[in-house]
């Protein structure tokens, strides 16, 4: 019996050892943060806010391809390398459901949207308590602004312009709740007007929640402040053809007369030298919102997404080239405009090949890994948005419209000064404003959006055909994987 007790106690000791390591069954990852611990400290929450900008900065989205595609889909560039991985199909106006551009922008924009949704949900579910209500309101406003931009980006390529049927066509799936697990694939596309309504609502909320400014010029440009939301609204309302609202919003940040500047919040103003806007430190008073890049891996657009890689020629063909020479300037595009004078400072962005006649855009000259900041919005756009809205809503050669246009033209081209007398009719003025946008924003991703919002033809260039608003291919098809995995989503 005694022996049996001994054995039993031995056995108990041996088998009992197992119990002491249970915590090892619940390891805490040391190189990443589990979702349940994400909203537990103020510094994590602040890091997450910045990650939303990082998501917007994705090379497939606003960090590169969204901007590039806005130019190459339109008429100012010629594809040089016929490479479908670098937008040959976008340029040729025949991308398919599985084209790199179609698939990648869709998924990058929605990853950004989901990150914003998760962030807003997380703040409402406890994050606000950690950082306090004021900071929480600022942060949530930033998330709303980024979500609004992402939806705006999606609408520009995957949906019919608002002008076509007043937003009654199919827009994109509108997702406003954070998703972290399987089972949420199916959701139908909301109409264009509903998506725009959400964008406006987000931007209004952002205007209310964002701080007036930050402590540094760098933060004022690389993060959203109140005037960022207002500036973006002038763009969105212009896309909606709601000129009265453009005027209202612009009025908040554009003084009544030249020199134009924003009366409150961050003081925007045109730079006297436009090239400064595209040079380090990229944080001039003209840059309302730009996406910072550094040489660190992951902090720049990455392979085949960089603006400079596409537009700048290779150093082999052109001295000073830093890119891959993917797209040269269309000799019949805007650079052929005789009214764009040779001494216009904006021509300084154009460089010629060492031999031959090819011209290239060198607005983004930073070499690999391409650290030039893509600009989301700058002050000259707000001025031209307002100019166009005023001309269209007054249906006259509006003096303020002319003054605004002149401010943009005259700072780069001192030889030209516009006055009311320069424009015989309102349509001459409007065309001048549109052409000014074409010159001013060359290589900034605006051209295709401008053509689309006005339902204009996308002109032919090189071997690429023209696309009329009624043509298949005027807008992009929907991503193939969305169609196969979201049974409620229909193609264009």
């Amino acid at each position: 019996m005694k022996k049996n007790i001994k054995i039993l106690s031995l056995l108990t000791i041996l088998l009992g050892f197992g119990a002491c390591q249970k915590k090892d069954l619940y390891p805490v990852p040391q190189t990443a943060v589990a979702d349940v611990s994400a909203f537990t400290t103020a510094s994590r929450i602040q890091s997450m806010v910045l990650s939303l900008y990082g998501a917007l900065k994705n090379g497939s989205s606003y960090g590169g391809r969204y901007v590039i595609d806005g130019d190459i889909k339109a008429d100012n560039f010629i594809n040089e390398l016929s490479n479908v991985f670098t937008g040959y199909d976008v340029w040729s106006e025949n991308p398919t459901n599985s084209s790199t551009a179609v698939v990648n922008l869709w998924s990058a924009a929605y990853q950004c949207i989901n990150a914003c949704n998760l962030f807003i949900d997380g703040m409402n579910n406890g994050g606000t308590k950690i950082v306090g209500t004021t900071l929480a309101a600022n942060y949530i406003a930033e998330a709303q602004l980024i979500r609004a931009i992402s939806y705006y980006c999606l609408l520009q390529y995957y949906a019919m312009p608002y002008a076509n049927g007043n937003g009654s066509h199919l827009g994109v799936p509108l997702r406003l709740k954070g998703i972290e697990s399987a089972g949420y694939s199916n959701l139908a596309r909301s109409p264009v007007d509903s998506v725009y309504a959400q964008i406006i609502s987000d931007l209004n909320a952002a205007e209310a929640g964002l701080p007036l400014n930050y402590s540094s010029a760098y933060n004022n440009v690389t993060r959203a402040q109140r005037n960022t939301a207002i500036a973006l609204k002038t763009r969105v309302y212009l896309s909606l053809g709601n000129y009265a609202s453009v005027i209202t919003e612009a009025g908040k940040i554009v003084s009544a007369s030249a020199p134009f500047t924003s009366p409150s919040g961050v003081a925007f103003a045109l730079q006297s030298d436009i090239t400064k806007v595209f040079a380090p430190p990229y944080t001039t008073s003209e840059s309302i919102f730009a996406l910072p890049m550094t040489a660190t891996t992951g902090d720049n657009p990455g392979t085949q997404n960089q603006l400079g890689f596409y537009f700048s020629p290779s150093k082999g063909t052109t001295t000073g080239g830093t890119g891959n020479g993917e797209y040269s300037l269309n000799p019949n595009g805007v650079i052929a405009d005789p009214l764009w004078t040779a001494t216009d400072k904006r021509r300084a962005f154009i460089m010629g090949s060492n031999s031959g006649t090819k011209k290239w855009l060198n607005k983004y000259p930073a070499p690999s890994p391409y650290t030039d900041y893509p600009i989301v919005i700058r002050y000259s756009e707000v001025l031209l948005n307002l100019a166009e809205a005023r001309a269209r809503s007054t249906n006259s050669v509006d003096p303020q419209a002319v003054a605004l246009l002149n401010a943009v033209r005259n700072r780069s081209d001192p030889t030209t000064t516009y006055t009311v007398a320069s424009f015989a009719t309102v349509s001459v003025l409007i065309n001048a404003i549109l052409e000014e946008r074409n010159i001013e924003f060359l290589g900034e991703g605006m051209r295709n959006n401008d053509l689309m919002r006005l339902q204009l033809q996308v002109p032919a260039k090189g071997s690429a055909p023209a696309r009329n608003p009624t043509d298949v291919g005027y807008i992009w098809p929907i991503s193939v994987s969305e169609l196969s995995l979201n049974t409620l989503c229909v193609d264009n």
Partner: protein
Amino acid sequence: MKKVMSLFVCLFLAYPLLHLQAQNTTVPVSGTVTDEKGIPLAAVTVTALTGDKKVVSTTVTDASGVFKLNVSARVRSLQFSYTGLEEQLIAVSGKREFTVTLRAGSRNLSEVVVVGYGTQAKKDVTGSVASVKGAVISEKPVQSFESALAGRSAGVQITVPSGVVNEPPVFRVRGTNSISLSSYPLVVVDGVPSFTGDYSNPNGTELSNSSANPLASINPNDIESIDIAKDPAATAIYGSRAANGVVFITTKKGKPGRVRVVYDGWVGENIAYGLPQMMNADQYIAFKSTAVANNPALTGPSLVTFNYAQDAHGKNVNTDWYHYIYRHGYSQSHSLSLSGGNESTTYYLAGGYTSQEGIIKRNAFNRANILVNIDSRINKAITIGGKISYSDEQNLAAASSGSLPGEAYNTIGLGREGLVLPSILAPYLPTGSYNINGATIGYPNVTGTSIPFFNPVPILDLSRSNNEVNHIQSSVYAQIKPLSWVTLKSMYAIDNLLIDYDNFSTPITGDGFSTTGTATDTYGKYKTWLWDNTAQFDYTFGSNHNLSLLVGNEQQRRSSTGFGINRQTLSDPAYTYIQAGFTINNPPVGGMILGQNYLLSTFGRLTYNFNHKYYLMGTIREDQYSALGVKKGVFGGGSAGWEIAQEKFWTSAGLDHFFSSFRFRGSYGKVGNNAGIGDFTPYSLYGSGIYGGTATLSFPSGSVGNPNLKWETSLQTDVGFNFGILHDRVTGEFAYYNNNTNGLILYVSQAPSVGLPTNPPLNIGSMYNRGIEATVNATPVQKRNFSWYTSLNFTYNTNKVTALAPGLTAIQTGTGAAGAETVNQTKTGYSEGYLWVVRTAGVDPSTGKRIFLNSAGQKVYFQYQPPLGSGQSQWTSSADGTVKYVSPTGGSSITQAADGVMYKNCLPRYVGGWTNSFNYSGFTLDVLLTYQAGFYVFYGTNAGLHDQRVWNNETDMLTDAWSPKNPNTMKYAKPVFGDNTSNGTTIPVDINVFSGNFIKVRNVTLSYNLPARMLSTVKISNARVYVSGQNLGIITKYPGPDPEVSSNGNSNSGQGVDQNTVANARTFTVGLNVGF
């Protein structure tokens, strides 16, 4: 120990008896007992039996294997038995002298098998276990033991994937059981689950181009036995890790008796075989010029020309690239072991060194290892012991061979370079310097086109991609037997794998050119500790009821750490080491590793048999695993056996005269799989990001988990029977199994608008493996001087995926980096990784165009370059090229996505082997044939061999390509320079899919045991010399070098692909085994 004691006792008691009998009419008989290698066996029990199997007398052999016995007239046969070796029964019939060889086969039902946390007599095992003795895999020129297991046992498929040394083989027990996790069996080495896989590629990112199989740390000469548990009765004790089968490795231990010293050594040569015959310079120029002429676009300024280059002697260059890439690899291996012991302590001490050169230049494997096993019985109740194994392995390569998973399309892939490089280019310029043009080879004699390939010679001279493994496997245990029927045991073990990866790409040319030299060094540390505690109760009551109960618990903790640096731009061209001057520093891709997991288990096993006639067994194991969402899982199995030959009706029917044993058995159980699951898979994680230089915490750079993630589970059924005929002269085994695997973890794509950064893992798929296994062993001839032993095994396995997931109707598995080409598609209703290609219908005799078949089976003609100005299209519905093809969905070309069909199965349905052993006086001839059948291989290399770009072509193109003179060939289209579609490079097509059926002469060994008399004068107890050949011949219709191949290595769903892979080597060895 007990056994040895009882042997002595028997001897003691038997001795006077023998003397007594000697006075009766007895005759003295004597003989020698050796093992297969001719090593004399001491302490073999020799039993004299009457006609009705009654024991008359016994003796044991002495240290030189000699026995002497006096036998009376009623003794009819002598039985020779020795633990671990096959028992033999030899009729006396007047013979006085016996020479007996006891074989290390898997045939002996009286053997002991390892069953997990203990052993069982093979005759009491109701599970399906295949045992392979260490002797059959030692002395084989392999890096790790698994490669030598091919064809050795039913239910086990071994496919050696390439000729790269130390690449782990494809190892399957009863089929492929998973899609996302590993299908490699659990390998338990001396009670400790080992690392398996390829640690050159630990987390899906290649850290060096030389393989690192952690099992190669075990010197095959140190292995005593390998037991492969196949059914749930045998595997369920390993619960959540058992679904792929469990392989038990037992290393050698000392035996009581005098010190034994054994030297084992061999030298060998590896050669490549079956390499395609490529065009020489004359053929290349003529053929490519014709192809250029056939391309209407290549005229005027676009003309492409190929010209002769001259070497230093002014002769035309005609390079045989194989000569610069392949070699005769020389190998050697030396092992020395010292073993012995007394009644209380035994030891085994061994050291080994091997150096094995692969057939690719600079690819080699070097290993130095030490193994110590010590067991010591302190007193009647307590035994302690342990093991120390240390191994240092160098896996060496200059650069990618293009043969390891992910490498198939590497530009420097050496196997591929040997095929694609034109014979008109020379490795050296006439000046003696390398022929290079920046990153690529120089091609001054070619105009109008570029040649994008590297010159392999400077890379073979100057670059390296090595890893060095330090592997420590060690354990200690204490065992207490407080009562005769109670055994308590506690074991603590470590298994540490420490790896240095060292890569350097020369700045002169190739991959390192653009960065002006790149070095990447990574250090990886993979550690396991394990502690298990068991209690075993063996109790017999009522004389016939044998009961045995095992209970235990186990903890296993693993951790992994890795870090390193990637440095670019050398500051001095002479530097090659990471520590030297470089100007750019990056973290190494895939080298930053940090993980940990923990498995906590409790288990029990109850076995019962009545009179060794009726058997019952039940096993249960509860596992808790850190890397799952639902931590806890309960697994188990039950089995029953019936030894029918013990039944009265069997003997009364006289069946026992024919059948010496006949047993039915069956088992059913539930086992799991967790191999290869990431340590933090259940968590949704926010990762590190960066925004303008400021750190961020980002969901888009994180990953999506699943808090409900569980084990993949497999419900397995096994029924079968074992039999022995004519005193076990013929034995056999038959089994049917049905394994239904459910809850397969799949990473299920969600609609991209959901915005998830990765696909969440879900337990959602299912598949089955069903099959039959049969093994027959026989000794057809057993004469005094000549014997023939033969063993044939057969496995039929059918695999079918029965469910994937909504939104995941097909899983595509790419070959090469980032899936450069995809030919494997896993779909419900098909076997895993089914070959998915576009069909063709030969070559149009009138035009020489390749005819493709679209999804509807309609003919579509392809011309690479329509005549200029003709308005014709590349893809047309008419042979003349005028009717533009419009696909059913409106497309204008054939694509794999639209027109690919589920074409052929790539998993071998039939596998097996046939072993033969012939003994004649001192000579033994062993022949092993292996076979695999019922599967197809996508010979992707074949597309490259017939690609009409600058790539060199196989010479069959000269005779089998369409030309006006040869219009009726169906094989290759009219060569048009630039055409990479008609041959199948851009779209995988059926013309490159071939049956993989083969029969291989895997191993032939002729050995000779030097006569003992000769050796005794020089104090050598045995000596054996042998010559051996591996992969000597192959019977197959497969056109490539070897259908036993896998470009995707051990991948579950990427089998049956031969894409630029260096084939297996043929090896010849000469060896010597000496015992003192």
